[in-house]
């Protein structure tokens, strides 16, 4: 893993972001190692989702650098960034509601032109997400939240990404699906895809993550191996014990 010049797949360094006058990120630096699951924790309005948007090129930082596999992503459009190998599972899933499940999953392969391999990958998705098999011709908008999350994950995998960024993948799901989603993230990761996920539910995220960062009003206040953070009293107070989980 450390044989290349750097084992960081994605690196944000000293990113400052503004919405008009308001500063959202203050010298944000985050590293996602190859093959790792990294999780960004934080409450509402801490700047988590904006971090996702920075990575995907949907929002431009005012200063700082974002590199993927050593090359800068700054100035690239979202489609160009997707072609570099970053796929996304957006917040609230954002499926194409009036398209069929099958079409949604295939939209994930939009940047690929190897038709036969895409067809094989579709079959692979159906073994990974067996429930979707019977739903293929259904409107995506008619699925339950959990099923939609499966479609969103299958859609992201279809581009054969090197990294998937996920915005609150467990939000609004029933406990049963939450476990299922976490298990799937682990499976995906074991197949070699790095994962960067944004979560409010710290205890769940720290279960599966290798490293984690805690974001508070645009600043990283804590970071380190997930195991260590899990036992850190500051995290426990702020995210595990306090107002949210109790």
């Amino acid at each position, binding site marked *: 893993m450390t044989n290349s010049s750097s084992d960081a797949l994605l690196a944000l360094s000293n990113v400052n972001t503004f919405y008009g006058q308001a500063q959202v990120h203050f010298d944000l630096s985050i590293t996602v190692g190859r093959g790792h699951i990294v999780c960004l924790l934080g409450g509402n309005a801490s700047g988590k989702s904006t971090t996702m948007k920075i990575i995907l090129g*949907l929002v431009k930082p005012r200063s700082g650098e974002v590199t993927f596999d050593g090359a800068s992503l700054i100035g690239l*459009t979202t489609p160009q960034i997707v072609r570099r190998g970053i796929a996304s599972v957006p917040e609230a899933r954002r499926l194409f*509601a009036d398209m069929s499940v099958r079409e949604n999953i295939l*939209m994930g392969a939009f940047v690929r032109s190897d038709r036969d391999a895409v067809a094989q990958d579709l079959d692979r998705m159906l073994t990974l997400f067996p429930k979707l098999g019977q739903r293929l011709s259904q409107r995506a908008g008619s699925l339950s939240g959990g099923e939609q999350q499966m479609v969103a994950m299958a859609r992201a995998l279809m581009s054969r990404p090197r990294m998937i960024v996920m915005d609150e993948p467990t939000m609004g799901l029933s406990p049963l699906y939450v476990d299922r989603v976490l298990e799937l993230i682990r499976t995906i990761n074991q197949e070699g895809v790095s994962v960067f996920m944004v979560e409010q539910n710290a205890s769940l995220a720290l279960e599966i993550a290798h490293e984690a960062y805690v974001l508070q009003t645009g600043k990283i206040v804590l970071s380190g191996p997930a195991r260590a953070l899990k036992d850190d009293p500051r995290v426990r107070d702020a995210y595990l014990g306090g107002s949210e989980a109790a």
Partner: protein
Amino acid sequence: MSSWLDYTINGLIVGNVYALVAVGLALIFGVSRLINFAQGSIYLVGAYIGWVAVVQLHTPLPLTIIVVAASAAVVGLIIERFGLRPLQNSVRIAPLLATIGISFVLDQLVMLTFSPNPRALPSQLPDVRFQVGGGTIGPLDLLIAGVGITSALLLFVFLRYSKLGWAVRATAQDRDAAMQMGVDVNRVNQAVFGIAAALGGVSGMLVGMYYNQIDTAMSLQATLKGVVAEVVGGAGNVPGAVVGSLLLGLVESYGVAVFGTSYRNLFAFLLLVVVLVLRPNGLFASARQAPPEPLTGTFIAPSRPVRIPRWALLAATGIFAILPLFPVSFYVLQTFINAWLLGMLALSLTLVAGTIGQVSLGHAALLAIGAYTSALLSLNFSVPVGLAVIGGGLMSAALGTALISPSFRLRGHYVSIATLAIGEIVSLVILNWESVTRGPIGISGIPPLSLFGYELISPTSIYWFSFAVMIVLALLQGRLLGSHLGRSFRAIRDDDIAARAYGLSLNRYKSLAFIFGGFAAGVSGGIAAHLYSYINHETFNTQQSILALTVVILGGLGNVVGAIVGSVALVGLPELFRIAAEYRILIYGIVLLLLVRFRPQGLLGTM
């Protein structure tokens, strides 16, 4: 004597033509949430390119269709690339205004190239009719139906089976998510504009052949009909646009069968208003479908208005007040009188569109109501002209507000469509209500302005009168904006949900704005009627509504002083440079485009 079958066939054929326009509008709306008011201009361009091909180049029919489709597509691509793409991150009203500006420019360019006189566009098919049941059908009918059905099939295949078609559908459903799948949204926009323009252009050519006549008035009509069909079918819904078009064609055709030709458009716009009020998402939208407009967010460019010191305003008012005392020509006075009349209309529109955010495209209707009321009061009931003008203002306030009130629940672009339709309806009612309005003949012999028994005939006295009225209206409006009422208006404009959460009744405040605005516009129309001494249903047309909107944007939306400055600039400058009348509309269109692109907040800033 035509049979019902004939009317049905005619309705379906016309519906097919509308469908070619409406499908393009629906594609564009789907992908970029934009109502493309330039669609009719592309249709016009298509008709004239068809004329060049048929009459001058003598191309055979299949080649004519290809030439028209290809050149119209190029026009569409140019519009997308240079007119709209630069506005991607602009306020939401910007692209809508840009398409209006583009349509002015295109229409005028066609008019300047080919002259405004109608031309014959011969059909290239044999002139025979076949008996079908109780009706007849000709080769051109079959061609139009064939083109319609073929285009629908091609479009279906494109959207369902091609990669770009998938990208179009995905972008229409969720633009951001589509980008995250690697879809290049600019390419999607390009594709959609190209297709829409090709279909629109062919449609214009077919209509030209159908009626064997083309002229530049076709443009606005086509845009209006396409928008009606599209909204009836559900904005952004492509199959809905086809069904909406056929329905519109049939409604019009049967309406004509029962009531006569001059009622054709009335039925179209009534259908639109009914659908907008009862089912704003269109006839086929499912109940759970999200409204196609974002719920909050600024529609109008926010800015800090330019502060003008009070002494400067007083000085300017003083100078204009004593202007007639200097040796100025009647021509100069006449120009300023026009500016003051337009200024009153602009005051009205800047309140309605700028302060409370209801961008009206049918404001000329308020002029017409005021003008007809004042003219008829003074002619039929011998009401003194001064009172009659006030009566015109009151009638515009009351009737205008009553007409728009069913549309108060609409937002953003939909308000513009509704006001456009209501404007057309007013003009069509004037045309058809002969017993009161004297129909197409118009009203002549309207008595000149008078005040307390003294006739105002000299340009000097008319100048003073109109200037004084405008200043009074401006002062009233300034007071209004400074009061809590003005704040409530702006709150509703900036976030109607938050405003409602604070207990503001949207309907009441929108009514108040339209009442005040209607009065100012009605007074302007009333004065104009007595100045012109003759008015008809075309005296106050959509072009004037758009001119007023350009004035208001030039001055800065919501800005009282800006409305007057804008009027003087747009009326005065073309006079100053002696620009020929036919270039003026072109210049207005270019001004609108440049403003939207480079200074959406106007000269003096929005308030």
